[in-house]
């Protein structure tokens, strides 16, 4: 088989597996800090109980993120030697800063955050929680700076076929960086919001009515209700930025084969690369032009404008639709949930089941969004600078094939184990909290008053 395809598959498998876990830890770090601060403030046990469950999910996600991240650091070189040879002078420092400023910070203070509660003061423990959250976010900052630079390279010059940095600020804050960082950060918070809401709904459906469940459910649903519309807005801005810098990607996302004025919005269709058209297309006239150019008759470039330098249409087209579809579903469910919580104080069994099913919907949206943007950059590895085919390894295809199967098997088993363990932890948490609260039934509870204050979530 073709080493290029195998290398791409292997790298895609690794990065898809990897991204699942940072998407949880980045936002969950801050949510844990929120739980911790609420507990410090109110002394209410429900926040500590929520913290106890979610810190376990955090530790598990973090471990999976670390080990898959180590794999990534090797595969940059093993699978794409041409990447570092051509743009190593740009990518190197960004990666180095990620390791230096983020990895050690989060890994070291994670130990204290997880296991140091009885060994350090509460203040130091809270500080460790802050530093872990800062570390995960810094890590996202650097890696997205590099990723954005691969989409919209800036601040460099080519000398003898090798990129040399000329302006580091322009490299880091390249044209798509702020949009991508915001979009990804919100995606992480949405992933976590739906995971928390889903797992809390799961416990609630199992009859677990402990205050920690209600509190976590509220945090998840309200967070999602606020962030989903924000994400729609940010996603739109990100799309306009892409139109400016990578119009071929937009053409593929919209399924537009021909450049035209007053381009329709293709809601559905089967893009066919042979005939350069969509079969069974359902279209709304002129809407794509209106969305992208804010004019009914604005010109939108189609695939035909880019000769051979355009991505495969069908995959980009479909992953984009899956992402948007989940986004709209998230909007509907989170608003219904918020409305139900506001009106009746609980979500009800039907919405509860929907939330359980949507526990990992963030992952699907993140992956499809990721595929949209990454496949949308093809045939380039670095847009306009380096083609993917020119960066690939010369390792024999058989070696890549064997290791690909080994990695895939490992990843499938681990994702399965992860999902089932997360639900198992939720069931366990229900049991242990009920047990823990039993003794208080003998005497008056010590600190419940703080929770009765009106208006406090």
């Amino acid at each position: 088989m073709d080493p290029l395809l195998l290398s791409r598959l292997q790298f895609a498998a690794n990065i898809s597996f990897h991204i699942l876990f940072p998407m949880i830890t980045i936002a969950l770090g801050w949510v844990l800090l929120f739980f911790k601060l609420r507990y410090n403030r109110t002394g209410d046990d429900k926040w500590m109980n929520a913290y106890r469950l979610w810190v376990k999910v955090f530790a598990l996600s973090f471990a999976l993120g670390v080990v898959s991240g180590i794999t990534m650091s090797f595969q940059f070189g093993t699978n794409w030697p041409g990447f570092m040879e051509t743009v190593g002078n740009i990518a190197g420092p960004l990666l180095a800063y990620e390791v230096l400023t983020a990895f050690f910070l989060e890994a070291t203070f994670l130990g204290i955050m997880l296991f140091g509660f009885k060994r350090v003061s509460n203040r130091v423990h809270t500080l460790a929680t802050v530093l872990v959250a800062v570390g995960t976010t810094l890590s996202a900052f650097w890696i997205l700076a590099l990723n954005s630079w691969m989409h919209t390279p800036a601040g460099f010059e080519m000398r003898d076929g090798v990129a040399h940095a000329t302006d580091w600020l322009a490299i880091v804050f390249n044209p798509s960086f702020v949009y991508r960082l915001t979009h990804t950060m919100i995606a992480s918070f949405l992933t976590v919001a739906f995971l928390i809401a889903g797992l809390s709904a799961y416990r609630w459906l199992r009859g677990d009515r402990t205050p920690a469940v209600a509190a976590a459910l509220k945090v998840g649903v309200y967070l999602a209700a606020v962030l989903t519309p924000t994400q729609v807005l940010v996603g739109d801005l990100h799309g306009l930025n892409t139109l400016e810098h990578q119009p071929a990607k937009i053409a593929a996302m919209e399924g537009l084969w021909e450049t035209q004025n007053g381009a329709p919005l293709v809601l559905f269709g089967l893009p066919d690369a042979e005939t350069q058209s969509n079969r069974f297309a359902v279209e709304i006239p002129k809407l794509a032009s209106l969305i992208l150019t804010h004019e009914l008759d604005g010109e939108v470039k189609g695939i035909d404008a880019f000769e051979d330098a355009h991505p495969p249409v069908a995959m980009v087209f479909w992953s984009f639709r899956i992402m948007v579809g989940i986004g709209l579903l998230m909007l509907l469910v989170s608003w219904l949930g918020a409305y139900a919580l506001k009106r009746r104080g609980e979500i009800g069994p039907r919405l509860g089941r929907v939330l359980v099913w949507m526990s990992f919907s963030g992952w699907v949206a993140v992956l499809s969004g990721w595929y949209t943007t990454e496949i949308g950059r093809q045939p380039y590895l670095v847009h306009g600078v380096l083609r993917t085919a020119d960066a690939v390894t010369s390792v024999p295809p058989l070696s890549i094939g064997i290791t690909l199967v080994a990695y895939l098997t490992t990843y499938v088993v681990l994702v399965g184990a992860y999902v089932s363990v997360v639900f198992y932890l939720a069931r366990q948490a229900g049991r242990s909290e009920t047990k823990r609260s039993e003794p208080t039934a003998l005497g008056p509870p010590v600190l419940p008053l703080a929770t009765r204050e009106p208006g406090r979530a």
Partner: protein
Amino acid sequence: MPELVPDLTQPAGWLPLAFMIVMGLSILAYVILDGYDLGVGILLEAAGDGQKDRMIASIGPFWDANETWLVLGVGILLVAFPTAHGIVLGELYLPVALMLIGLTLRGVAFDFRVKAGARFKRGWDRAFFVGSLLASLAQGYMLGLVVIGFEADMPGLLFAAFIGVCLASGYALLGATWLIIKTTGELQLRAVAWAKRSMALLGVGIAAVSLATPLVSERIFHKWFDFENLIVLWPMPVITALLFFIVWRSLSRLPHRLAQNNDYGDWVPFGATVGIFMLAFHGLAYSLFPYLVIERLTIWEAAAAPESLMIIFVGAVIVLPTIVGYSVFAYRVFRGKATDLEYY
């Protein structure tokens, strides 16, 4: 013969040297730090069920940060010496993949073993052991291949595989001596016995590497055995032998002392083993220098552009001491005997 060492007053001269030192120290830090927790993983299979939790607890707060040194070491190879990264990791493609799968297994098993249901615990413990062993064997195998310049004929592969076993044994020694510091009672005594058993293979492995390198390269032979060099270098093997003796003597005495509830000197075996690893590492570094790929590629030939190296160098000078600082802080927080891991 071309000039190996360029003008060191120029950034293009001293920056690669500085990065080689930082990379070397990261790899050394990795070998010692992750070495002891990989070692504990290798020994896990030999322990009783009740002892496994305590063994894992002794490495729980540290293993994550320990593995980060590998990312830094490989990261510097990647960003500072991109050409060498391509060659070295291309040659080591399969063992690297094995190591990564091993590290993945043990990293996640650490969490899964206590978070999945009780009936899965034994399976995850097994995964922790297999992963640790696989990663250690793969690392030793890679060391073997690096030493013989990737000469992948049959004797070469056998040599590399043998070094794999020796390094795993060396990690087991680090792990066992770490457990002597961090545990008490029966487990501590067992750790003493494990440590004694792991010593021999580490010694043989160091001897094998020391003999192989001068045989592979005439240049390395002269570096060690020319008279004026030998006069300066002879203490290295002698001190290494002395450290082995110290470990052995301390391990022989510890059971009696521990029986009288006397912890005095429980850190000596670990400390001396760390010393052995440091000396062996420096010996190897001395042999290889200035080559990154033995007799093929020097650090200057492999280095990235000086202006990019300078950007990283400035960051590293500021951040690395901070990292060392808070790592020391973390080790201080968890000093003393390991207690059960609790999330609150």
